[in-house]
């Protein structure tokens, strides 16, 4: 049984890596729900000028025909101009890559960014699309039949947990 990394411990390392690379105009977008939590922690650590953007990919998923509008959609708010900007897309767990694909499609409906870099807290492998993270907190092996989830406690503390897939 792989020992799961401490989510809180991963944040300073990621922040340091990112700080070295951000430009004045860089903006950050967190993906609901887990990615938004991570982004909310990273954003202040990087001193970015633009406020944090939050995105829900509910309307861009590729499984609508099968699953319908199951997940309670939250509102996407992007309080800055996407056009010509360096973007940091933040998610909690990178797995098949489909979420990121949907997020990029949605981003391009807002404008044409200069670049998009993917920041993830954990990469569990199992890619089904040619997607890669430029910044990654940790690689995690997930046993078959399990799912890797980010949880946020009442006091805001983040933690990575495994749970069974039904």
């Amino acid at each position, binding site marked *: 049984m792989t020992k799961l990394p401490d989510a809180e411990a991963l944040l300073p390392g990621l922040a340091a890596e990112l700080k070295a690379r951000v430009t004045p105009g860089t903006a950050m977008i967190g993906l609901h729900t887990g990615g938004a939590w991570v982004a909310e922690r990273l954003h202040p650590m990087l001193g970015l000028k633009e406020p944090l953007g939050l995105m829900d990919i509910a309307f861009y998923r590729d499984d609508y025909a099968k699953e319908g*509008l199951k997940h309670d959609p*939250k509102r996407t708010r992007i309080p800055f101009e996407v056009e010509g900007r360096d973007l940091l897309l933040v998610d909690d767990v990178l797995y098949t890559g489909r979420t990121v694909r949907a997020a990029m499609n949605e981003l391009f409906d*807002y404008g044409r960014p200069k670049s998009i870099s993917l920041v993830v807290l954990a990469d569990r492998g199992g890619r089904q699309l040619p997607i890669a993270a430029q910044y990654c907190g940790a690689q995690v092996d997930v046993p078959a039949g399990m799912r890797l989830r980010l949880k946020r406690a009442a006091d805001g503390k983040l933690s990575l947990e495994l749970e069974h897939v039904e």
Partner: protein
Amino acid sequence: MSSNPQLNANGELQHLLSTEGLPREILLQILDTAESFAGVTEREVKKVPLMRGKSVFNLFFEPSTRTRTTFEIAAKRLSADVINLNVAASSQSKGESLLDTVANLSAMQADVFVVRHASSGAPYLIARHVKPHEHVINAGDGRHAHPTQGLLDLYTIRHYKKDFSRLTVAIVGDVLHSRVARSLIHGLTTLGVPEVRVIGPQTLLPAGAEALGVRVFHDMRAGIKGCDVVVMLRLQNERMNGALLPSAQEFFKHYGLTTDKLALASPDAIVMHPGPMNRGVEIDSPVADGPHSVILPQVTYGIAVRMAVMSIVAGN
């Protein structure tokens, strides 16, 4: 017939026929989803690819440009293909039955039927006969229901007033013939609005109105007192000269919304109207264009609400 025809076996919304009988959770789900879509309509690319490849058939047996257009816009913003059928003009006049028309369209791979019909209950008949993957959205049936209008009215109220549990809402005018009023009343009572009032002359209020859960007023000044939301209903021409009302002038004097009558309502009351307005009959211009009026925003919210309804039913 006991089970709710709007819900599938899992209790999810498969058809939207009426706000009556919709569980509170589903009403809220629709309003919350509409909230997310509101963001889409504000940006440059107003489309999301959610319903790409799906076909929405607008089956309007009663002509209507406004409602049909908003459904068309909503469907296109979901990237769905839209087919408009002005059935009033074509097959019905050739004597084809309602169910035959629907069966023919079914054969053309429809996913969603948006139906407006002059007979109350027509969408229920259609919903009983469509295939499992087809969904019916009622765009207005007779005087029975106009659920998307009721929902966008609820959305508007929530947007400006936030908390339903403390509101007094008045609906003024021809409630007897109004499907908009019925849909709004059911939604308001489901969401726990403590006082819903209907205001109008006896000839324009239905039998057993109290059974809908409303307080009846014939005196507008008494009924509008302290209201947080005032909804004015459209008075159609044919009502004004028959045995229901003597004239538009007399109606306006007693039931038209003017600045001085509005002053009796709560100071931050909002004024709504499903449109199109008859200025000088149910509402005067200073009020319609004034600071309390949220009539234009209602129209915008209508698109987000219809996008929400379509995407929820089509996915179930």
